[in-house]
């Protein structure tokens, strides 16, 4: 059998229905099983350029997304997500299956991996330096990250900033950007070369679709990158786009509030957050449209002041 050199659609489909598709995302290896065509289709569209893991003897997260119940061929039947042999969630409808997979993959990171300080944030990089953007409600971080990514910034993550415990560096975890409702159209018109996976309708967030995010040549470089900026974005309609300084103390607390495991890490969490915040220029970022936002980011000096 010829060696597999890329994740093409046939390989993906076949793996999903047998031993599982082994997917290497930054430091994490997922092993995904599914009998759903929409899952195979979505993965083929969004993950075809991902590297093959070095081994198939070990995976960090064994997940499956399958039709549940005995009557598997009934239209409108439900699908369920399993983590190894458990079902952490109630089922969803077939139309939401692809979103369910991506959310489930996020969940795997959110509840494990305490070997990092994890912050709910987007992470983007340029010239080997990273910006961490905590995702407070109303931030619009996904739409902003999608636009920056399409304009040449390297996306390290849309959802989880994995900060090393002993130094202010972030570990890449590049996966598709999750966009909802009108953000989907906004990004499509922002850049019509944007590649989207299958849309999931009627989710509790409305319409959700995922944007291929590994277009930067360094997307799959696994090395950790120094963080130099902590930026708290906020979308405010009609406001003048601007960046203003934020105290390190307030940035510390707001980043801690957006952290999955600051509290779990105890004293180590305090020291790691201190290390991160003191290494960064901290700012509040107000924006009302993507073009002016992207332009401002282009002007950013990425080296710490």
């Amino acid at each position, binding site marked *: 059998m010829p060696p597999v050199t890329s994740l093409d659609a046939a390989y993906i489909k076949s793996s999903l229905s047998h031993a599982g598709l082994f997917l290497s995302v930054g*430091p994490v290896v997922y092993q995904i099983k599914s009998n759903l065509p929409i899952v195979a289709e979505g993965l083929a569209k969004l993950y075809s350029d991902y590297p093959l893991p070095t*081994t198939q*003897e*070990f*995976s*960090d997260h*064994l997940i499956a997304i399958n039709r549940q119940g005995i009557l598997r061929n009934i239209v409108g039947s439900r699908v369920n997500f399993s983590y*190894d*042999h*458990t*079902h*952490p*969630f*109630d089922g*969803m409808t077939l139309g*939401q299956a692809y979103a*369910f997979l991506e*959310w*489930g993959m*996020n*969940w795997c990171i*959110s*509840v*494990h*991996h*305490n*070997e990092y300080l994890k912050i*709910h944030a987007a992470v983007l990089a340029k010239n080997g330096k990273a910006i961490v953007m905590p*995702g407070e409600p109303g931030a619009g971080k*996904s739409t902003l990250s999608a636009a920056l990514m399409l304009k040449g910034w390297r996306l390290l993550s849309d*959802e989880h900033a994995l900060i090393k415990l002993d130094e202010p560096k972030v570990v890449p975890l590049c996966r598709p950007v*999750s966009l909802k409702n009108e953000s989907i159209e906004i990004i499509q018109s922002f850049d019509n070369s944007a590649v989207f996976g299958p849309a999931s309708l009627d*989710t*509790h*967030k409305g319409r959700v679709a995922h944007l291929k995010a590994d277009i930067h040549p360094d997307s799959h470089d696994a090395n950790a990158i120094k963080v130099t900026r902590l930026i708290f974005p906020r979308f405010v309609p009609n406001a003048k786009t601007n960046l203003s300084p934020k105290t390190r103390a307030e940035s510390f607390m707001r980043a*801690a*509030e*957006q*952290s*999955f*495991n*600051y*509290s*779990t*890490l*105890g004293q*180590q969490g305090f020291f790691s957050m201190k290390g991160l915040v003191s290494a960064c220029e901290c700012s509040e970022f107000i924006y009302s449209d993507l073009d002016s936002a992207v332009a401002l980011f282009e002007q950013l000096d990425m080296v710490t002041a």
Partner: protein
Amino acid sequence: MKDSFLLAEVIQTPERLSGLRLSDWNLLIRQARYTGLLGKLYQLTLGLDISSDILEKIIPHLLSTQIIVNKQRDGLHCELVKLPPIFEDINIPLILLKGGAYYALGLPFSASRMLSDIDLLVPKQALPRVEAALAVQGWQSQSKDAYDEHYYREWMHEIPPLVHRKRKSVLDVHHTILPPTTKYNPDPEKIMAAAREVSPGIWTLCPEDLVIHSATHLFHDGELEHGLRDLVDIHELLQYFAENEAGFWARLVPRAIELDLLLPLYYGLHYAQAILNTAIPESVMQHVTQGAPNKMMRPLMDWLFLRALRSAHSSCDLFGSGFARWILYVRSHYLRMPLTLLIPHLLRKAWKRRFKDKAEAPNEFLGGAPTDREPLV
């Protein structure tokens, strides 16, 4: 995959870990995760020679769990600073059970053992005073509804769990180690009389009672999903006290007889030996077997328990494991509640689990303040 109880094998013989391949570790980590023994696995790897290729893959999982355990231990430490003055004020000894006791005693195996609630034992007549003193310091009852409140107070041996309103730690205050409705009635006063003060204001059960309680909890009280983890506790306690407590073996079985808990101790020793190869003197096994079920019952009980005690992970399942666990769950409830109350109660618990306890479909961000999120293994 079937019949491959790797986890039990490495607990018996930790040196085997050095020779495992990556694919073995893949299985082992999954088995350990589902039985709550990832911390134990981490502890077993310390000091062993494992290749760096393998360590690189497995360490994140083991370390991540140890971090959670460390946080739990910090939390327990905090409560062991805050609780003694409260109990001193009302002149009731603060007697710790289970995980809290193992921590307070500094037992080595407790360094990687997952903790949950803090279990205390107090005299029944002191309960109102204890509840009142704790309430003043911010401890609030967390019963889900009036039915739960009734269940806890009337039929269980606990008041509903108390949660600290700021720190969110959970206290389970017991007045006996088995519910008063069972046919076993170990005298709580005897148990409390033998308690030892291990540091100022902090008491634990004596070594024999810690073992007997652990066996009783597993074989009559608990839900067997974490059966192997609880059996590992028994194994560790026996090994530790065998080495560090003079006269422990001589006192163990007579104490169980005195407390009328010989049968659970028999199960504890028998299955620790069978599944984990715990070293138990032959004379002790002979003595405790006097409390074994009659000869005809033993194969059946072995069939049930040996299956149910394996990890809840399907790679360890023998045929009938799920059924065995269900039978034993019903049995433990039967031992606990009169039949007339048992069936409505079981139905209600099943209903609540199905409709209330499962998380909703994941948000992109699992909402709530970070401190509200339950850390998982």
